């Protein structure tokens, strides 16, 4: 038998434990900040582990400028979860006075802006910009596309996007070809789809890596990089960039059309199918992620990849390798198709939506203060300070002989490469401050003569002339109205799923691209999935955006 005292002590432990639990629940209420605090400006921002916004020297400067103490509410760099958490917090009515986000982490979508703008959570910035932000007004005047990107169809600016004029990002679908193999086999850079086919065939059969094995992979890509668009552009204009923009919407004399139902698209698929059937395309191109792709590119035994489609070659082969294999891959200009078609897909490098927004919790004075902080980051020198830090410490004025990325521009600054071994200085806001990243700013930074960035710049020049401006559907300035947003979200998902699936099946042969019946049933499937309604909504939204 246990002694009663022993039992009692246990019971007491339990009781104390319980009391602690309940007490905990009640006393924990003391936390939580009041966004209405008069001297504080609550800012929601993404913070990586090497920046501390609270102690950041630029934060201090901005606190002085605005006259407010910043109350930072930070979120993770992990995009998917950051977005989900932000939406739940917003839906729970728990949001700050200012949002300061990073496009590639998480930002307000156009739909978010319309929804929360019309619900009154997000405050229009138009008047604030007019009265308190001369630099922003100047930037809008300099790049009207920037203003168009920021403005909703009702004329209001519910949030400010980051303007990022990244030249090489505009041409997502580049093809990189192994020039060492070309030389070895005494071949020229192909210029037409037919020539390309022959080159691939030579890669496959003539053992260009010289290891005696037919282990070459003539052509590959990954599910994140998309193989098709580069080749489809030799048959019709295909605007698909990467998996993040998989739509084939274009304009045909002002009419919104879906390229994936055109006969020329079918011709493109047929060409791809011929290559696939000849064993020139890696079956993994439709199933592998980038990890598996680069494993092929870096394969220890011998270089395997003949050509691959990707934004830059570093995606499929690690740069600066000892055997220098990565340097063999050079961009191939758009191919000319059998009917003389030769296009390059264009995507706006800026992300539609907004990263900076003010909520209804901010008082008028706070709104003015916040817009002044934003405005401060627009002029070039202040932008350098905001993004990178202090001159002479975190970045340097160009020295004579140093040239800008775009050699026609006067260089403005040299930003040293980040050394992962050195603790960052915590002087700048980094990606939080990239608002006026126009070509004059971005391309005027000093780059080493043989640098990767310069190579990308040159490669992108090969694609620039082939964008059919009149066919580009400006999806970034087309805002689908609130009432139709739910419908369009479903239609977009269904149609893009169907196009991606059917295209891959036509190429790999599980649908027969030569069979008129199979093609007709695919087109019919598109119709029954709601394509007409989809185009109708997009057309209306496009017309409203003009």
């Amino acid at each position: 038998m246990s002694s009663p005292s022993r039992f009692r002590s246990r019971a007491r432990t339990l009781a104390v434990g319980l009391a602690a639990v309940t007490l905990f629940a009640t006393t924990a209420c003391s936390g939580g900040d009041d966004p209405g605090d008069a001297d504080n400006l609550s800012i929601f921002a993404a913070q990586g582990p090497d920046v501390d916004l609270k102690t950041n020297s630029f934060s201090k400067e901005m606190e002085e400028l605005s006259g407010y103490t910043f109350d930072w509410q930070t979120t993770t760099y992990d995009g998917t979860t950051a977005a989900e958490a932000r939406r739940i917090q917003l839906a729970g009515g728990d949001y700050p006075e200012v949002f300061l986000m990073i496009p590639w982490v998480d930002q307000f979508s156009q739909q978010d802006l319309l929804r929360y703008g019309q619900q009154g959570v997000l405050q229009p910035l138009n008047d604030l910009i007019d009265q308190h932000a001369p630099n922003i007004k100047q930037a809008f005047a300099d790049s009207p596309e920037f203003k168009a990107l920021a403005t909703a169809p009702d004329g209001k600016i519910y949030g400010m996007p980051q303007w990022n004029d990244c030249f090489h990002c505009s041409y997502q679908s580049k093809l990189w070809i192994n020039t060492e193999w070309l030389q070895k086999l005494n071949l020229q850079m192909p210029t037409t789809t037919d020539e390309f086919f022959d080159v691939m065939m030579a890669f496959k059969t003539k053992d260009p890596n010289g290891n005696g094995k037919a282990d070459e992979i003539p052509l590959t890509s990954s599910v994140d990089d998309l193989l098709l668009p580069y080749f489809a552009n030799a048959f019709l204009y295909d605007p698909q960039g990467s998996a993040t923009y998989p739509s084939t919407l274009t304009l045909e004399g002002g009419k919104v059309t879906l390229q994936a139902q055109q006969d020329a698209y079918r011709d493109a698929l047929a060409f791809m199918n011929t290559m696939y059937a000849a064993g020139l395309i890696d079956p993994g191109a439709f199933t592998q992620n980038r990890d598996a792709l680069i494993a092929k590119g870096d394969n220890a035994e011998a270089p395997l990849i003949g050509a691959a489609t990707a934004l830059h070659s570093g995606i499929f082969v690690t740069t600066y390798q000892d055997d220098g294999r990565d340097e063999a891959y050079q961009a191939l200009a758009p191919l000319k198709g059998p009917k003389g078609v030769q296009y390059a897909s264009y995507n706006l490098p800026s992300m539609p939506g907004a990263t900076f927004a003010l909520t209804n919790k901010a008082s008028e004075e706070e709104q003015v203060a916040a817009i002044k902080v934003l405005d401060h980051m627009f002029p070039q020198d202040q932008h350098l300070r905001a993004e990178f830090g202090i001159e002479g410490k975190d970045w340097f004025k160009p020295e004579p002989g140093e040239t800008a990325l775009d050699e026609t521009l006067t260089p403005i600054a040299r930003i040293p490469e980040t050394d992962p071994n050195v603790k960052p200085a915590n002087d700048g806001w980094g990606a939080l401050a990239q608002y006026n990243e126009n070509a004059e700013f971005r391309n005027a930074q000093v780059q080493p003569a043989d640098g990767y960035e310069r190579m990308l710049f040159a490669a992108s020049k090969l694609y620039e002339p082939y964008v059919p401006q009149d066919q580009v559907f400006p999806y970034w300035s087309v805002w689908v109205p609130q009432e139709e947003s739910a419908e369009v979200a479903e239609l977009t998902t269904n149609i893009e799923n169907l196009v991606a699936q059917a295209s891959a099946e036509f190429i790999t042969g599980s649908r027969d691209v030569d069979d008129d019946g199979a093609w007709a049933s695919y087109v019919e499937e598109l119709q029954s999935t709601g394509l007409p309604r989809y185009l109708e909504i997009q057309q209306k939204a496009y017309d409203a955006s003009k």
Partner: protein
Amino acid sequence: MALTPLRPGKVADAAGTSVRGPSAARRSLRRHWQLYLMLAVPLLWFVVFKYIPMVNAVIAFKQYNVVDGIWGSDWVGLANFQRFFDNPVFERIVSNTFLLSVYAVLAGFPIPIVLALAINEVRLRFFAKTVQLVTYAPFFISTVIIVSMTILILSPRIGLVSDVFGFFGADDPNILGDPNAFRHIYVWTDVWQTAGYSAVIYLAALAGIDPTLYEAARVDGANRLQKIVNVDLPGIAPTAVIILILGVGNVMSLGFEKAFLLQNPLNLSQSEVIATYTYKVGLINADFSLASAIGLFNSVINLVLLLTVNRVAKRVTGSGLW
């Protein structure tokens, strides 16, 4: 052999089933007031963290608006449900979810049991402990890594599987591009990852078996297999049945991450499940009311499945959830 089936749980069931009626209630309250008191705290927790939020799930019937709040938002009746049912892909994603999940539950059920029984037989303590520890470890690997390794292994041309086929001079199979292979890949990598972790619960149940039952089996001269069949299995059966019931009752709540990461254009016809689909739609237009409606739909199916399986289990094995 005269081994009577030994059912440790049997006695308990017989003890007090006739607790009905108001007088029984009063008697039970008087006698077990301590138990009721003890129950009060966790029940309060259930009310606060489960039932109060449940009331707010009315947003499935509303057009949710942050400023107006849940109760101030406009009623839209069944419109959110209607939209889901009317979607042309509705049937496909529901059946994909159901088939994938049922397969995962069924395949994931027996293996941990076998593993636990086998570990339980081993007398070499070090070996038994090593197997336990090693099989439990994969549970902590993130889905991203699991999927990444899976794709590498199955990838044509470089993967392990490719090497094996190449060794036999056969052509590379495009396993990742075969929609029919998707469910097998999903389920068996899942089993690989969770079998050891799930076995832990059975090891605990095995440790809880009354040792006198083993003595009795030994006296009867049972061999190991007979001991497993007559003592071990009946001993863990109540736990196993409940795990199965709970698994089936969660069939529709399949997570999105793994299916999403394993998805590619060629396996979409089978890999698109409710969770991945709503994720994609949500990327374009985050709609909480629709998400709640879909959640409610899943719950109803789960409820029906759970009740059915529970009834069957009760009839067949004599034990169920209640």
